[in-house]
């Protein structure tokens, strides 16, 4: 406690001294000082307790009043516990001056120490039979507080509903009472409080609600609405009607009152109406729809609070029928509103558009409009969402890319728009240049113009690093779609020495793609597959249809558990850390085959191909290319194992072993862009008459290779080719040497164990090049 910088704690003790004095003046000032300076955080607070106790029993009611007031404003829980008894006593006194103060003091005690509520219950018995409005008012407050805090009390006090209704009725019907009149209405404070208590009492109770129906209707129709008081009462009535189990006629009446409020000139009333409508829109949607046009007009109001409420309410009112009209209004609002609204409005528009879009084209148009007007305020995940939406609407590709291109020509400052646009141009640049578009006038764009725009993005100051990354990748993708590759090569090599590390890495990798891996380029830069979204806001699941662009490390969620592939794929995952990346499931390989393979390797010492390990090439361009995909691709990786329905990419299968009825076929997959990993699936089939049980397949490879064996589908090979056992082998072949393998097979046929070794040399060249 300081005054003008000097400690003034002496003031607190003076207050205590004043309170203890006998003179009324001193007490008055002392209590005032106490209320201002001695709140319960102060140490000397408790010292007041005794004084207050004495004063509560003082002969002068004003002193008692002072004590009650102080206790009721800032008594701590200890004080309340000590003095609750005194308060309760005073609650029963016949002196109305003290009674009303005691009631509010009791409210404070209950707020501080809820356990003491029962203590005040007997005193409440005849509180409502008082004539004095002050006591009535404070009693209603006390009852309200008790009912709110305890369901038992609530049930107990339900029987008071008829009494309350009667009091309210008297208030309305009685003539002019000079003492309590406010602009022609009799004691509005009491009326509102009673209405509120009725609301709490009638909330889930049919009988009580039934008993109040009449009086509510009466209040709603008879109250004067010219002044604020009348509207205050009407407002409370409407809230009560909406909350209890009222009959439908009454509810319609309530909504109509709110509709009338909306048309009122007074801004406060409009604000209040919008707030209540927002509360009721869930339950009485149709009734609120009727007032839609008024609500939309409120969007144009100058007042900030009203605009915000109107915006929230408008979003709540959007449904399939009115979505086009509403969106038009809301987009217009987005154009002209203050920055503080733009973010919320943009998110709201996206959500509504997603739920109720009448057509894909409309959806894309709407999103584009939002991006062009409020681009810097949209949420971060809107870019991937939009990209995903565009990819999925296949027929709209040409139209979309054309519109985005035109938008880019106008303005490159809105980053989300620029990112989406550059991604689309990268993907669908060929459609753009070919000029085919059914929906709109096709524009004539040459490849050079497109590249100009993209290079402009790269060089511009307005572009963030993320945007630059997008545009560089887009340029790269165009190398397969456009014919003029030299220009692209030049751009890519220039950025190989860029200061931005991210750009530099990408450029270097793309460069490498041009030089050493040119044969891979078309496959790598192919069109993106269609992505499926399972939930609006949840992690996206990907169904892998075309394995070209997927990262090499896809984790399965349930067995067979996929082990962590080797390091280049690791880097890939790190690069692509999205929001909901499934933590990599590290499982140890079933150790037996691996060690068995190791044993085999030792035994087969002559397999070593010699030669020092060549320096491994830079993590292939593949990670870089994949990393341009929007991060959400990795969110929630699919549970499907990598190898199920992936196109073999043209490597012919081969038979590795065929002896004694057991045939082992190898099929190859290039499921991953990493050309060093060959994924081989073995299919073991049995043409004998008996099943082969305990079938174990083991493999060994030369030292320069690395091998991973995943769990087999089963270890029984059914007879007569009725089924097959499959198992996946991954071979890492960094040095691109010819793939060789030794396999060992063990199984039990007709009770006798069989073991065999074989060497597999006839791997097709494509599997290891």
């Amino acid at each position, binding site marked *: *406690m300081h005054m003008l910088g000097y400690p003034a704690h002496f003031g607190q003790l003076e207050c205590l001294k004043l309170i203890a004095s006998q*003179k*009324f*003046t001193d007490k*008055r000032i002392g209590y*005032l000082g106490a*209320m*201002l300076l001695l*709140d*319960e*955080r102060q140490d000397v607070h408790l010292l007041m307790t005794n004084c207050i106790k004495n004063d509560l029993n003082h*002969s*002068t*009611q*004003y002193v008692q*009043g002072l004590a*009650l*007031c102080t206790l*009721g*404003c*800032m008594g*701590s829980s200890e004080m309340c516990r000590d003095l609750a008894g005194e308060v309760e006593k005073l609650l029963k006194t016949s*002196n*109305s*001056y003290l009674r*009303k*103060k005691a009631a*509010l003091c009791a*409210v*404070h005690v209950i*707020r501080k120490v809820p356990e003491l509520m029962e203590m005040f219950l007997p005193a409440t018995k005849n509180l409502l039979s008082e004539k*004095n*409005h*002050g006591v009535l*008012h*404070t009693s209603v*407050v006390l009852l309200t507080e008790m009912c709110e805090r305890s369901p038992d009390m609530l049930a107990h006090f339900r029987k008071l509903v008829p009494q309350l209704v009667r009091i309210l009725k008297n208030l309305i019907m009685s003539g002019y009472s000079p*003492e*309590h009149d*406010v602009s022609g209405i009799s*004691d*509005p*404070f*009491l009326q*509102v409080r009673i209405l509120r208590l009725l609301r709490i009492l009638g909330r889930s109770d049919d009988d009580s609600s039934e008993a109040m129906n009449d009086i509510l209707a009466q209040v709603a129709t008879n109250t004067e609405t010219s002044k*604020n008081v009348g*509207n*205050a009462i009407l407002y*409370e009535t409407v*809230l009560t009607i909406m909350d209890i189990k009222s009959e439908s006629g009454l509810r319609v009446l309530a909504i109509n009152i709110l509709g009338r409020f909306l048309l009122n000139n007074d*801004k*406060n*009333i409009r*604000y*209040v109406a919008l707030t209540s409508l927002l509360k009721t829109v869930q339950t009485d949607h149709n009734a609120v729809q009727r007032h839609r046009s008024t609500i939309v007009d409120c969007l144009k109001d*100058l*007042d*900030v*609070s*009203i605009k915000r409420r109107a915006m929230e309410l408008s979003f709540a009112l959007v449904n399939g029928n009115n979505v086009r009209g509403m969106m038009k209004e809301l987009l217009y609002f987005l154009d002209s509103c203050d920055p503080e609204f733009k973010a919320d409005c943009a998110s709201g528009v996206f959500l509504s558009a997603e739920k109720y879009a009448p057509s894909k084209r409309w959806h894309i148009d709407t999103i584009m409009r939002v991006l062009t007007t409020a681009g810097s305020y949209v949420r971060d995940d809107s870019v991937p969402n939009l990209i995903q939406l565009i990819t999925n609407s296949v027929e709209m590709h040409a139209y979309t890319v054309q519109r985005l291109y035109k938008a880019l020509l106008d303005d490159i400052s809105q980053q989300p728009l620029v990112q989406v646009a550059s991604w689309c141009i990268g993907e669908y640049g060929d459609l753009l240049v070919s000029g085919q578009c059914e929906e709109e006038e096709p524009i004539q764009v040459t490849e050079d113009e497109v590249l100009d725009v993209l290079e402009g993005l790269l060089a511009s100051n307005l572009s963030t690093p993320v945007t630059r990354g997008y545009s560089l990748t887009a340029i790269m993708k165009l190398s397969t779609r456009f014919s003029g590759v030299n220009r692209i090569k030049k751009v890519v090599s220039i950025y190989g020495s860029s200061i931005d590390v991210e750009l530099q890495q990408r450029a270097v990798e793309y460069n490498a793609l041009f030089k050493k891996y040119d044969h891979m380029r078309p496959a790598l830069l192919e069109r993106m597959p269609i992505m499926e979204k399972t939930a609006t806001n949840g992690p996206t699941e990907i169904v892998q249809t075309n394995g070209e662009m997927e990262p090499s490390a896809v984790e399965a969620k349930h067995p067979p558990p996929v082990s962590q592939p080797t390091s280049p794929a690791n880097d890939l995952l790190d690069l692509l850390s999205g929001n909901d990346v499934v933590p990599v499931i590290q499982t140890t390989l079933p150790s037996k085959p691996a060690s068995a393979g190791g044993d085999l390797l030792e035994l087969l010492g002559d397999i070593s191909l010699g030669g020092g390990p060549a320096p491994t090439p830079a993590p292939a361009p593949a990670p870089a290319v994949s990393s341009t995909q929007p991060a959400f691709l990795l969110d929630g990786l699919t549970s499907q194992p990598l190898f199920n329905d992936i196109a073999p990419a043209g490597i012919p299968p081969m038979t590795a072993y065929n002896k004694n009825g057991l045939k082992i076929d190898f099929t190859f997959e290039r499921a991953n862009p990493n050309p060093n990993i060959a994924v081989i699936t073995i299919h073991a089939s049995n043409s004998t008459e008996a099943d082969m049980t305990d079938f174990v397949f083991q493999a060994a490879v030369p030292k320069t290779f690395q091998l991973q064996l995943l769990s087999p589908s089963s270890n029984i090979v059914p007879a007569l080719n009725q089924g097959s056992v499959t198992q996946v082998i991954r071979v890492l072949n960094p040095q691109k040497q010819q793939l060789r393998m030794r396999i060992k097979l063990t199984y039990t046929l007709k009770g006798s164990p069989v073991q065999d070794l074989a060497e597999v040399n006839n791997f097709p060249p494509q599997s290891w090049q």
Partner: protein
Amino acid sequence: MMRFLLLFSRQGKLRLQKWFTPISEREKKKIIRDMTNMVLARQPRSCNFLDWKDLKIIYKRYASLYFCLAIENQENELLALEIIHRYVELLDKYFGNVCELDIIFNFEKAYFILDEFIIGGEVQETSKQIVNRSIEASDMLQEDDSSEWYEVELFG
């Protein structure tokens, strides 16, 4: 219930503060600063309600003073406006054409009147006459502050 009531001038000087919940000094200062900034920045013809944290702020301007009341979310805003108006009326009746100077020089009286009208964040008396009579009686007690007390009957 009401959480706090603040009165401040057009220049942002605080004239009256009443807190109905225990709050630390530092919090109080912060709240005062926030309120004055928010309310003084409002356009003249905008609505009198603001949202702030989880409370509703009702403010009204009377001559050179802003009355700023914070209520909880389930309270009736329009009624809060009436409460502010009633308080101003009580002050007016007591001081006779109250102005800001009256409140500056007789701030303790303003607090006394407030305490007769509101306790613990709730209205205690809805009748103007009764409140006025109590204040007058207390004042008389103060004047007659010799060693003798005498009872003052309150009618009604």
